[in-house]
């Protein structure tokens, strides 16, 4: 459910910050699913997976935000539609 919401957010919002947030929600949802799996099977694997997801999310967000910062300096609007100088 969270995952779907995140997906909807990803598809509807053009603002880059929002896209990143939506991705974050999706990752969180996956993590939740892993923990649920871990709960169901009574094993710690899923929880460990969640730890990894957390770490990866942190790394991803930091790189992503740095990228956006840099982008913002050039295009203050921060709208992914402006990022279309190249033909899609």
């Amino acid at each position, binding site marked *: 459910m969270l995952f779907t919401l995140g*997906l909807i957010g990803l598809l509807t919002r053009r603002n880059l910050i929002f896209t990143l947030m939506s991705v974050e929600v999706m990752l969180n949802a996956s993590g939740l699913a*892993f923990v649920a799996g871990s709960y169901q099977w009574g094993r710690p694997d899923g929880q460990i*997976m969640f730890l990894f997801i957390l770490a990866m999310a942190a790394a991803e967000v930091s790189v*992503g935000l740095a990228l956006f910062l840099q*982008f913002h300096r050039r295009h203050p609007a921060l709208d992914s539609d402006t*990022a279309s100088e190249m*033909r899609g």
Partner: protein
Amino acid sequence: MTVSAIRACLPLLILAVTSVAVMIGIAIQRNHRATVVISLAGLALSFFSLWTAYSEAPAQITSLLVIDQYALLYMGFLLAASSAVVLLAFPYLENRSEHKEEFYLLAILATVGSMVLAASSHMASFFLGLELLSISLYALISYPRTQDLPLEAGIKYLVLAASSSAFLLFGLALIYIAQGTMEFRRMAGFSMDSAGGFAYLAGLVLVVTGIGFKLAVVPFHLWTPDVYQGAPVPVTAFVATVSKGGVFAFLLRWLRAGGAPSEPVTLILGIIAIASMLVGNLLALRQTNIKRLLAYSSIAHMGYFLVAVVAGGALGKAAATYYLVAYITTILGAFGCLLALGNGAVETETFDDVRGLLWRRPVLASVFTAMILSLAGIPLTAGFLGKFYVLAAGASATAWLLVVVLIISSTIGLVYYLRIIVAMFADSEGTAEEVKASRLGIGPSLVLALLTLGLVVLGVYPGPLWNGIRAAAAALG
């Protein structure tokens, strides 16, 4: 960790240590040349330690990694490709004003990620390897961070790759919920009908989506042209070779470890293969920018791979691997030529840039022509034998539809490959101002020469490599 386990993952360890060494080196003093030397030394050491690891193979390192012949073979390819990229990148970066050293650090980290992919036998290691690769790539793609195009490409890649990772993870989570294990080996016996079958299926589809994104196959190909065009040329070469190679190695192993490719996955992959071949080639027809053109053609090439994957069997796996090697060699060469054509400040991109190249720089043009011909699959090049093997695999699996689409689409492909060649052979009188040709350094020249040699050797005398690949594919099970 026993000694033998350490020996077995020596290539990975060495490379990881190299990345730390590079970082420390940067911290002590920024020196471009020294950084390159350290990186190359690390890559080379890692490459030679493959033989040490080979003496231990096959080895299961905890439940995460499996170092077998197959993994080592792929690691070898990845390391070689990565070294080539590093060598090619040196002059490219030399002409730029910003910091150059982090490039190598990131490239090495990405290579580690890719190698982990090749050896992973567990969801966790697969996921971590993939993310290590992607996160390094985000930064690499936008490496010239003060220019618009790379930034844009980086953001597009980031957004799409991050969401694809989320898809992948969710799929993995669903599979985990359904099966209660994350080891690929243990998944083999899982039957579709038991409880959680639906979750398993959904998970499979999502995982295929995630992998499909990384391989840039239709319909997950949207990022490819932008990233290929926007990213700096060495990075594009990296994306096209090391990144895809790692994911590809994983895909083969995953299908293998999950028992025989299960029915739905094969079906999906078959459809994806057909769509990729057709869409990639048709869209490539309309391009005027060579980097974009190569992007679309890469989509088509991934489609060819998938034909071999779908065909399955020992022949299919070996064919796919051979095709991959041929493709890596060729595309590295092609991007190397593009690099050599540009002079740092300006990148060679459009057809106009290569117009009349043959008469301006005959040797380079000949190399480039050879690469393009190999991409097109003309005999005596690696690309042809790759395509031949794929065709053989498809025919032996009696996947006639795939074979026919392969034939038709590679004919379409010829049209645009030939256009590049025609442009190179056209008269250069029109473009009067001669681009001042920058001298090629020793490194890139060496790489290009080796790649051309490899191209011909692979195209003319495939025997030894084919044997190795067959053995490795057999080791896969």
